[in-house]
């Protein structure tokens, strides 16, 4: 079996297939497995977000009587630490690969037909590899903004993670999760951050009650958040950039920035792979078309991860990788999740899984909602973060949990309980009857469930 791309999808597939006894070749341009997620995505961004959280937490500590003073930031050291984290994890993956005797080839791969691939090494060396089955896990890359020229001052997520310097004025184009996460990092490191977003709210598609809480806090820290606004022109101007912004009413403003980060989405890496030499078909959006076993329309080629469709998330890629490997080894596997969790690592975090309120409305699904405010949580009070709530989306007749949405400090660590509940077909009463440890934020899930079934302990609701 051949796996093209060694991101969280590709390496998980390769490892599983090798463990199931297949002879596996793994092809990637990087020196080690890891893909976008480890080299220039999840891991470096979360390392930097941890640093920025330390800054904001220590600043806010002044409010409870501990003043650390203004932090001194050694950008070089921070960068080195982040790179070290990436290096350590990817080297570990390289070792795991070797232990499984997976044949790892560094180079750029291209399908010659449904049974062979040509790999061009970095030094120009070429080799041809034949296979019975291939899994395409080539991931995705950032979408570029046509009006922004190829300037050193126009960043994408990859160059922004390199942390060359901290610009005085930073414009973030795109209010999606990557833009807001990177904006949070640069803001805490000292940049004045402005965000423009075409849609009428941040994180388009996310339930607006969740984003409202985040918006309220970001509005206090960012210089400005411009919604329903688009960038129509970008010019170099005296050691910086001049951006032309057009608002909803058509009003045009020109503003100066030192740098600009374009984070307007990602597009699947499905071009330049020689897929035209196979029978694998693409969707109109450029994703490989796949079935529940992740087979493409070419029976010898499977596809997983970002290149196989939304949501473009590392854990979804990994799960698909295991499904594809098991099914190619003759096992009966299918990709059929009820709940894929999403976490946005801003401050506060936002996390959800299963059906969202927005989706339920759109799909005409009947539902009931219960919300437990963190203002009523003892734990939230002790960490001085009452800005948040825990929401359950339930079937109105059975109380079955259809979705969970949370906003609040560190809530990414809470969402997995929702995933398990949904996958197991649990009802609100099941969560209500499970004892949750006190004082923790996880209690907010139990208390939200209590509200669904009747009486809450820490919130009094008169019954009609």
């Amino acid at each position, binding site marked *: 079996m051949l796996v093209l791309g060694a991101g969280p999808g590709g390496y998980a597939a390769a490892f599983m297939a090798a463990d199931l006894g297949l002879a596996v070749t793994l092809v990637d341009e990087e020196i080690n497995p890891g893909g976008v997620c480890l080299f220039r995505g999840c891991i470096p961004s979360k390392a930097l977000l941890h640093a920025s959280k330390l800054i904001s937490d220590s600043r806010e500590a002044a409010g409870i009587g501990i003043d650390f003073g203004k932090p001194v930031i050694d950008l070089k050291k921070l960068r080195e630490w982040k790179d070290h984290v990436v290096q350590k994890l990817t080297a570990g993956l390289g070792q795991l690969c070797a232990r499984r005797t997976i044949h790892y080839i560094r180079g750029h791969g291209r399908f010659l037909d449904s049974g062979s691939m040509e790999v061009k090494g970095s030094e120009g060396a070429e080799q041809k590899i034949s296979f019975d089955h291939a899994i395409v896990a080539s991931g995705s890359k950032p979408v570029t903004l046509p009006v922004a020229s190829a300037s050193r001052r126009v960043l994408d997520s990859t160059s922004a993670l390199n942390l060359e310097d901290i610009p005085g004025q930073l414009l973030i184009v795109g209010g999606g999760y990557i833009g807001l996460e990177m904006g949070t990092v640069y803001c805490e490191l000292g940049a004045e951050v402005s965000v423009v977003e075409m849609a009428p709210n941040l994180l388009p598609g996310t339930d607006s009650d969740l984003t409202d809480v985040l918006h309220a806090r970001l509005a206090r820290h960012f210089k400005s958040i411009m919604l329903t606004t688009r960038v129509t022109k970008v010019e170099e101007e005296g050691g910086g950039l001049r951006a032309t912004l057009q608002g909803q009413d058509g009003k045009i403003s020109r503003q100066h920035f030192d740098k600009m980060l374009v984070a307007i989405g990602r597009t699947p890496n499905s071009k330049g792979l020689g897929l035209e030499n196979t029978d694998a078909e693409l969707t109109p959006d450029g994703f490989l078309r796949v079935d529940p076993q992740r087979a493409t329309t070419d029976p010898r080629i499977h596809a997983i991860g970002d290149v196989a469709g939304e949501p473009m998330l590392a854990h979804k890629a990994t799960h698909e990788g295991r499904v594809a490997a098991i099914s190619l080894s003759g096992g009966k596997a299918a990709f059929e999740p009820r709940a894929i969790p999403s976490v946005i690592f801003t401050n506060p975090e936002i996390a959800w899984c299963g059906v969202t309120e927005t989706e339920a409305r759109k799909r005409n699904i009947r539902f*009931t909602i219960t919300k437990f405010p963190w*203002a009523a949580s003892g734990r939230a009070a002790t960490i001085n973060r009452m800005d948040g709530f825990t929401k359950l989306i339930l079937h109105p007749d059975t*109380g079955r949990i259809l979705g969970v949405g949370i906003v609040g400090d560190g809530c990414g660590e809470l969402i997995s309980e929702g995933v398990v509940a949904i996958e197991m077909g649990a009802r609100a009463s099941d969560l209500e009857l499970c004892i949750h440890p006190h004082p923790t934020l996880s209690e907010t899930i139990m208390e939200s469930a209590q509200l669904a079934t009747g009486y809450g302990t820490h919130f009094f609701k008169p019954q*009609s």
Partner: protein
Amino acid sequence: MITEFKLPELGENILSGTVVKIPVKTGDSVKKEDTVLEIEASKATIEVPSPVDGIIREIAVQEGQEIKVGQLIMKIQTEGAKGAPEGKTEAKAPPPAQHAPIREEKAAAPPPETAEEVAAAPSVRRLARERAVDISKVKGSGPAGRILEEDVIAYARGIKKEQPAPEIQQELLPDFTQWGEIECVPMGATRLHIARHLSAAWHVIPHVTHFDKADITELEITLKKYSTRERALTITPFLIKIAASALKLFPHFNASVDMRKREIAYKKYFNIGVAVDTEKGLVVPVIRDVDKKNIFAIADELKEVSKRARANKLTIAEMQGGCFTITNLGGIGCTSFAPIIHWPEAAILGVPRSRWEPVYIDKQFVPRKVLTLSLSFDHRIIDGAEAARFLRWICQTAEQPLLLEMEG
């Protein structure tokens, strides 16, 4: 408000019953005293009325389930005190504190029940995949219909059973070659079908066989008298006609039992099957609407159909739709025999060879032509006394055919 409706007391000493019918479904609105459940207890069907006006939100029992007095049967949502739906009543509650939790209810069209929405743990879904079970077809026995491992296993077994007719488990045959030479021949399709069909019928129907004697001395004379070269009248067409009339008089014999639905289907048509011995084995063509045909017409049809049966030319449709079967071995021999019912019918009439017997009439024995008829019947729906009456009526009518016109 949600009313939890529990099974009320049904009568003296009745502590439980079997749900035979649930005439309502989730989402239905019901009025107080509307029947929401039918229960069978102590051989009686009891209708259970709703205690309130409202909308059924959950049904906690299933048809066929044995339930006890006091057990939750359904949840009924009743309207708020002022007649407002629940959601609105809540909205009227005192305005909550600033960070008050919110509980809203939004109603829209019911969600399409896709496979995706089936409640089952991932491990159970995987099991279903491995057993090639479509999980959306499995009925969950867990809370709120959650599908458990056992449900999938039971369903997988169920499917296998439904495909071919139930194969009755049988001990392995001994090795006959230890006693002598044998030859093994594969069963033909007809033989296999007969074997399965008869095993299944014998397995599901509790058979009882009655015997009774008919004096057919006069009848034989009559039949002979009206026979021609083209149409030799035998006793079979005559019995076919009598049988149809008997079914009219005794409707339980023209019925089929459905234990799963707990129903008895009474047929309003009178089609009689006749067992015909062919080279390939027994087949049972059906003569339709016997009540509307005279004996000559029946005789002609029987002759024609038997000929085609022996030529292996019958269609499947011609062998279906029977209500009652007659099997006549008289041409071969036999003094009497106990036939197996042709499922899903309720009874079968066995006709052996008639014999001259000494019959005690007017203080002396006289030779009479006597036929010992047998009747195998489904004891689930036919009681012994009724079967005796049925068979007696057939015998009497054979002796005094006028009864056909008077009662039949």
